[in-house]
C-alpha cells in the first residue's frame, strides 16, 4: 500500500538521522520514533483521508525536526554525513547533472581501480533555439554507496595514474575537466607508481594543464583529494569536508595513541572542530571559491533539485574560467557580469569553451598565481617594511640583470666571444713587442727542464686539501661512549666509539654501512663550500593559524629546542664555486612537518632560484608530512609548492631533492615527489604513509624495510642512493650532468 511505502521511506530518514547523530539529540529522535510507531499502529484501521492527513503531519514533523537538527550540525556530524552510504556519489552526479555520459576504462569492478572513475560526458545548452553539446571530461572518486570494492573512494596509485593519463587526453582534445573529490585519502601502497609519487606527478601535471579544471569537493581527504583538485575553480558542497587528516587520525595523534587504540568520541569531535574542515571554514580561508548549498542534512540521491544546482554551478564555474582566460574584452566582461546573476538559467546561455593558445597560457598562469597566493595572508613574517622594500628591489634587479646577462648576452655570445678573442690576441702581441728589450736586458733564459730523475724521486707540489676532516661535527661526537649498530645481530657489526662514529665516520657504521641519523647541520655545513652560506627569509615564523588548542606552546617549544623559527631553512650556497639555492626541511622541528611558514619559504626559495638562475636543491632531512594542526592551511602547501616547482623547472632550472632519515606524507606526495631528480642518503626511509598508518588503513603487515631507500629505488620512486660521505661529490656531479637550459653556469 502507498502509505506503507511512505512510512518505510520515513523510517529510512529516521535511520539516517540516527546514523548521523549517534548518541545525540535523543529527544528529537524518540519523538520521531514515537510518531512513526503511532502511525504504524493507527494507519491500518484508518480511512484513506485520515491516513493522508496523518502522513502529512508526520512528514511535517520530520521536516521541522530535520531543519532544527541542521542548525545544530557539528563538524563531526558533517563528516558522518559525508561518509554515509546514502550520500550522493559520483554515479548519481553523472546520471543527473550531465545529459549523457560514457564511463571510460571501467565497468563496475572491472577496472584497474574502481575507486577512480573517468567518464566523458556532455551538457546540452540552448541559445535562441540552437542546441550545443558541450563535452567535458569527468574525473572523480566513486564511493558507490558503500560498495566494498570501491574502497570508500580511496584511490590506488594506478587509479591516480589513470586520472593523470586522461587529464592529458582532455588537454589534447581541448575540453574542460570536472573533477569530483569524494575521497577519504589516497590508498597507501608503495607499489609502482607509488601512492606518494603518483599524487605528486598528478599535482605537477595539473599545475601546467592547459584546459579549464573545475573541482567539486564533497570529501576532501588530504593527499588523495589533491591528486585531482588543483583546479581553476574549487566548489564545495555545503555539507562536505576538506581536511588534512581524518578527525580520528588527528585524535590518535593528539591523544598520543599507539597501535590501533581508539580515541574517545569526545576527542574526535573536538579535533573535527579544531581542524576547521567545513565548507564555510575553507571558503573563509580561500581554499574553495564557492559553496554549493545542499538540502537539509546533506544531499542524497533523491534530491533532484540539488543536482540542478550542481549543474548550474559547474556550468557557471566553467564559463567564468573560460571567459577570464580569454581576457577581459568589454563584451566578455559583460558576459561575466551576467553570469553573476543568480537567476540566470545557464542551460539557456551559451559560452564556447574553446581557448586560443594565448588564452590557454593565461589560464595556466592564472591558476598558478591563484595557488601561489593561497595562504599568503597566514604567513607570519616579522621582517621590517624597509627590509621588504629592499627585497622587492633586489628581486627586480636580479630579474633585469639576468635578462641582460642570459637572454641578451648568451644569445649573442658567439659574436661577442669573437671580438674578445681578437682583442686578447692583439694585446698579447703588443705585450711581447713592448717587453722584448726588457727581457733581453734581464737575460732571462728559458727554464731548464728538470731532469727525469729529479722529477721521479723528489717531492712534488701537491695541494692536499681533501684529507682534512669535516667542517661540522655533531655534538654527539663529544660523548665518550660506545654505540651499537641496529643491525649488529644480523651483520656482525662491532660497537663503535661515538667520537669516531659521529665525527670521522660521518655517522656510517664502519662494518655494514648503515647510516645513523645525523643532524641537518651535517649536510648543511659539510657539503657546501665553507663560508658560502647566506640564509634568507629568516624572519618567517611558524605559527598557529587555526589557533589549534595547546599548539602555541608546542610550536614555541620546537622553536626553543631547535633555535629555528620554522621547519624550513633556505639559503644560498656554493658547491665548488657553483652557486645554488638550497632549502632544508628540518626533521627535528615538529617532525619536519610542513605548514604555511615552511611552504612560503619554499616557494620564495624556488622563486629566488628561478630569478637568479641557480640550481635549486632541497635537502629533506626528514618530514612526517603536512602539519595537521594547521589543517587545510597545511594541505594547500602541496599544490602551492608544486606550482612553484613547476614554474621553476619550466623556466629551465635544476630541481634536485635529497632525502635523509624518514620522509613521509604530503611533501613527498607533492613538491618533493614531483622532482625529476630525487636521491636518498643510505638507510633513509621514503614513503606515503608510515607502517602504523598502513596497518590501520589497509590491514596489511609490512616488512621492517618496506620503506627503505633501496626498496624505493627498486620501485622506481627515486633515482639513486648516495653515501652520506659522498653527498658533496655527488651533488657536484649532479650539477654538472643534470638539469635544464637556464642554469647560469652552463
Amino acid at each position, binding site marked *: 500500500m502507498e502509505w506503507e511505502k511512505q512510512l518505510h521511506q520515513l523510517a529510512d530518514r529516521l535511520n539516517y538521522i540516527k546514523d548521523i547523530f549517534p548518541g545525540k539529540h535523543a529527544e528529537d529522535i524518540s519523538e520521531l520514533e514515537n510518531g512513526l510507531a503511532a502511525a504504524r499502529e493507527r494507519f491500518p484501521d484508518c480511512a484513506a483521508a485520515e491516513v493522508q492527513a496523518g502522513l502529512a503531519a508526520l512528514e511535517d514533523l520530520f521536516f521541522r525536526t530535520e531543519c532544527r537538527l541542521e542548525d545544530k550540525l557539528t563538524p563531526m556530524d558533517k563528516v558522518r554525513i559525508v561518509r554515509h552510504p546514502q550520500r550522493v556519489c559520483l554515479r548519481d552526479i553523472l546520471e543527473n547533472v550531465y545529459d549523457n555520459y560514457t564511463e571510460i576504462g571501467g565497468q563496475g569492478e572491472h577496472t584497474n581501480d574502481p575507486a577512480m572513475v573517468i567518464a566523458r560526458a556532455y551538457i546540452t545548452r540552448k541559445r535562441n533555439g540552437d542546441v550545443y553539446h558541450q563535452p567535458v571530461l569527468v574525473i572523480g572518486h566513486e564511493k558507490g554507496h558503500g560498495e566494498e570494492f570501491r574502497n570508500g573512494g580511496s584511490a590506488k596509485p594506478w587509479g591516480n595514474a589513470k586520472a593523470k593519463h586522461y587529464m592529458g587526453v582532455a588537454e589534447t582534445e581541448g575540453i574542460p575537466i570536472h573533477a569530483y573529490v569524494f575521497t577519504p585519502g589516497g590508498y597507501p601502497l608503495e607499489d609502482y607508481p607509488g601512492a606518494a609519487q603518483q599524487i605528486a606527478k598528478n599535482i605537477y601535471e595539473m599545475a601546467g594543464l592547459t584546459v579549464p579544471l573545475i573541482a567539486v569537493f564533497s570529501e576532501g581527504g588530504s593527499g588523495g583529494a589533491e591528486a585531482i583538485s588543483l583546479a581553476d575553480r574549487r566548489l564545495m558542497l555545503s555539507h562536505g569536508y576538506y581536511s588534512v587528516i581524518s578527525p580520528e587520525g588527528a585524535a590518535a595523534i593528539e591523544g598520543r595513541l599507539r597501535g590501533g587504540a581508539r580515541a574517545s568520541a569526545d576527542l574526535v569531535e573536538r579535533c573535527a572542530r579544531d581542524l576547521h574542515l567545513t565548507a564555510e571554514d575553507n571558503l573563509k580561508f580561500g581554499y574553495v571559491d564557492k559553496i554549493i548549498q545542499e538540502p537539509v542534512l546533506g544531499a542524497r540521491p533523491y534530491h533532484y533539485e540539488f543536482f540542478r544546482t550542481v549543474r548550474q554551478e559547474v556550468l557557471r564555474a566553467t564559463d567564468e574560467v573560460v571567459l577570464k582566460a580569454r581576457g577581459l574584452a568589454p563584451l566578455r566582461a559583460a558576459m561575466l557580469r551576467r553570469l553573476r546573476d543568480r537567476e540566470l538559467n545557464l542551460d539557456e546561455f551559451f559560452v564556447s569553451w574553446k581557448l586560443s593558445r594565448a588564452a590557454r597560457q593565461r589560464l595556466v598562469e592564472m591558476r598558478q598565481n591563484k595557488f601561489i597566493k593561497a595562504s599568503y595572508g597566514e604567513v607570519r613574517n616579522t621582517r621590517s617594511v624597509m627590509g621588504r622594500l629592499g627585497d622587492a628591489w633586489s628581486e627586480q634587479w636580479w630579474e633585469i640583470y639576468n635578462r641582460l646577462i642570459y637572454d641578451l648576452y648568451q644569445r649573442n655570445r658567439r659574436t661577442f666571444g669573437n671580438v674578445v678573442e681578437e682583442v686578447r690576441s692583439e694585446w698579447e702581441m703588443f705585450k711581447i713587442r713592448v717587453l722584448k728589450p726588457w727581457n733581453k736586458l734581464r737575460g732571462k733564459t728559458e727554464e731548464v727542464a728538470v731532469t727525469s730523475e729529479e722529477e721521479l724521486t723528489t717531492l712534488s707540489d701537491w695541494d692536499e686539501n681533501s684529507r682534512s676532516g669535516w667542517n661540522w661535527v655533531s655534538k654527539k661526537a663529544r660523548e665518550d661512549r660506545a654505540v*651499537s649498530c641496529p643491525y649488529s645481530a644480523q651483520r656482525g657489526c662491532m660497537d663503535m666509539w661515538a667520537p669516531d662514529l659521529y665525527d670521522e665516520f660521518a655517522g656510517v657504521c664502519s662494518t655494514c654501512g648503515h647510516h645513523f641519523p645525523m643532524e641537518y647541520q651535517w649536510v648543511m655545513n659539510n657539503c657546501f663550500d665553507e663560508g658560502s652560506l647566506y640564509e634568507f627569509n629568516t624572519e618567517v615564523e611558524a605559527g598557529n593559524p587555526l589557533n589549534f588548542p595547546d599548539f602555541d606552546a608546542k610550536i614555541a617549544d620546537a622553536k626553543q629546542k631547535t633555535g629555528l623559527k620554522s621547519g624550513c631553512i633556505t639559503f644560498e650556497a656554493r658547491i665548488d664555486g657553483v652557486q645554488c639555492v638550497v632549502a632544508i626541511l628540518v626533521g627535528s622541528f615538529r617532525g619536519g612537518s610542513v605548514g604555511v611558514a615552511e611552504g612560503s619559504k619554499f616557494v620564495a626559495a624556488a622563486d629566488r632560484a628561478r630569478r637568479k638562475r641557480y640550481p635549486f636543491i632541497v635537502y629533506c632531512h626528514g618530514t612526517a608530512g603536512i602539519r595537521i594542526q594547521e589543517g587545510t592551511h597545511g594541505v594547500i602547501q602541496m599544490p602551492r609548492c608544486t606550482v612553484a616547482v613547476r614554474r621553476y623547472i619550466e623556466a629551465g632550472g635544476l630541481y634536485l631533492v635529497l632525502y635523509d632519515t624518514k620522509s613521509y606524507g604530503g611533501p613527498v606526495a607533492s613538491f618533493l615527489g614531483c622532482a625529476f631528480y630525487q636521491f636518498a642518503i643510505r638507510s633513509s626511509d621514503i614513503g606515503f604513509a608510515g607502517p602504523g598508518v598502513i596497518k590501520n588503513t589497509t590491514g596489511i603487515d609490512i616488512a621492517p624495510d618496506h620503506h627503505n631507500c633501496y626498496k624505493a629505488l627498486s620501485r622506481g620512486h627515486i633515482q639513486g642512493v648516495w653515501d652520506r660521505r659522498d653527498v658533496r661529490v655527488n651533488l657536484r656531479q649532479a650539477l654538472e650532468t643534470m638539469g635544464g637550459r637556464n642554469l647560469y653556469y652552463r
Partner: protein
Amino acid sequence: MRDIAEVLEALKAEPYTEKEVCAPHSGVITFTDIAEGAKVHGFTGMWKEIPGTHIATITREKNPRKVLANERGVMQKVYRELDGTFVESGTPLGVIRHYLTRQEVVSRLLKESLYAFCAPERAKYYFTPDIDTKVKMLGCRTVTIHDGMELFIVSRMKREVPLCYSGPTGIIYDVYFDQQKNVDAGAPLIVVCPPDQQSAVEDVVARVQSEWVEGE
C-alpha cells in the same frame, strides 16, 4: 643407528632442552623484573622483526644492550645474584627450558636414524655457492647429492678449501650447521636420505605429528 621408537621414548622422558642464556660480551648486568618460571619467546613475526623477551641489560662503555631470549620456553633459572655486577663475556645469566616442537623432534630423530655426514675437523662450513642458492631458494630437500660430489667449503684461519661428500646417494634431509659458527670435528653437518628410505622417514614424521604433544 638406533631404533626410532627407542629414541622417541627417550625424548618423551625429557621433552625439552635447557639452554643457558650467556652474556654476549663483558659489562655490568642489570636484570629486568623477569621471574623464574616466566614464559619467554624468541624473535617472532613474519620477518622475525619482533624481538624476543627482554631478560637483562648489559652495559659496556656506557652503551646499554638488551639481552633477549632467543627461544620460546620457560625461564628456568635467573642468576639474580649477578644483578648489578660486572660479568665476563660468556657468563651464564639464566637458563631457558625449551620444549621441543614437532619439527625439532623429527629433526632429532632423523639425526639418529639417517646417514649423517660429519665434520672432519673443527671449522666453519658453507655449502658451495650453487648448492647454497638452491638450499636457500627451494629448501634443502630438493638437493640430491652423491658420493664424491663437491658439497662444502671449509673455512678456517681465513683460508677456504673444498670438501667432498662421501656416503650414500640421496637428498639432503636436514642441515645442522650455522655458517657463522665453528662446527666441532665429528658433529653432523647434514643428514642424507637415500630414496629407498624415504617412506620410512615419512613414517617417522607422521608418527611424531600424531604422538608428540608440544609442551609450553
